[in-house]
């Protein structure tokens, strides 16, 4: 089954995979080859990709996404998100610090614009941190 992760910055993933776990409005769904055709909404969270059938959980590849649209048919999964960060590129300590900064910013925000900006940052870094956490848990 082919997975395409399409972002505004280009196609992030275009590869044959065995299983994709997607965060949707109604909870996480795991997609295997032969899934019935579906167009749905992805919420912010982590996408997990299992490349080959026998791969252990520790070799899952993770992407932090911020919500988008997914399109599934029997042989393809296409995910349309504005940005996706590969778990490999996320440094846990950095994300943690960034999340704390964002939380502090939200506390000290004086205008609606600042609160919204802070909220977005909090969401983004919370997802990234979650992805980093998932990776660490499965590695050890």
């Amino acid at each position, binding site marked *: 089954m082919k997975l395409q992760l*399409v*972002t*505004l*910055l*280009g*196609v992030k993933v275009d590869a044959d995979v065995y299983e994709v776990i997607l965060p*949707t*409005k*109604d909870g996480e769904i795991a997609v295997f080859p032969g899934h*019935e*055709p*579906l*167009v*749905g*909404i992805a919420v912010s969270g982590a996408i997990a990709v299992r490349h080959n059938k026998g791969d252990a959980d520790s070799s899952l590849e993770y992407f932090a996404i*911020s*919500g*988008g*649209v997914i*399109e*599934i*048919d*029997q*042989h*393809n999964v*296409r995910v*349309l*998100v*504005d*940005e996706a960060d590969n778990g490999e590129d996320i440094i846990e300590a950095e994300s943690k610090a960034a999340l704390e900064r964002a939380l502090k910013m939200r506390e000290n925000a004086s205008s609606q*614009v600042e609160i*919204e*900006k802070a909220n*977005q*940052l909090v969401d*983004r870094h919370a997802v990234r941190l979650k992805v980093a956490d998932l990776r660490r848990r499965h590695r050890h």
Partner: protein
Amino acid sequence: MSSTRALKTRIRSVKSTKQITKAMQLVAASKMRKAQEVEKASAPYTRLANEILTHLSNLGETDRHPLFKNKPSVKSRLLIVIATDKGLAGAYDANVLKLYSRQLLDDQEAGVKTKTIAVGRRANRFVSKLKGVEVVAAYQDLPDDPAGSQLRAIVDTAIELFMDESVGAVDVVFTEFISSVQQQATMQRILPAGYEVTEVSESVSSAEFEPSPEEVLEAITYRLVEAQVYHALLTARASEYIMRMLAMKNATDNATDLIDDLTLEMNKARQSAITQELAEISGGVEAMK
């Protein structure tokens, strides 16, 4: 004729200006290439969004949704105007702001109220001086490859204003990069939403929609509007860089000409000084005889 020393100082200062403009020219050239690449990278995103939308419109969903509804009469509209942060790009800012002003005049005549989102320091400065224009938001110093989270602020504001009916239409005023010799200030309507009718792959046409077609439609429309704003920002950036490159090339050429002229003048001044000295010496010799 000015003194040789004054001319020398001028030549030196023009030379250093030339170095700066030359450097800016090279920087703009490489940034332009990058902006173009980033812009091209977003094409698959737009294509997929268009494909899903085409299918939803075949199902008749788009006719019902408020984001697609054309208002019979537009009483107010939102203009998103994109200009540069630092200028120095020839007629770029003037062109885009001229188009924007023309829109304002049209609106005024038609009795339409105008709200504005200004992107870029030059646009901010321009709109803050205007009377009778409500500035909803102003952005500056956006990076060359704006991330989704930075775009979202603009897109959210536009959609929110459109949905609660405080504006009847949303247009973006920006500079389209047509080719490396042609850039044009243009306006594009992003709301009510439009989409390009594309061929729908079989996978999309047989798909179920979850949780419901309406919700998927809303999500995908958001993505498409976002992609359109992104395209406008990036094509404006590419235009900015190429126009800056040309402006700086002209400045460099002018500086070269100026240096040539000044050098010629300096040589003349030096020559005439020497001639005068010689005349004085030979005059003195004659007098001694």
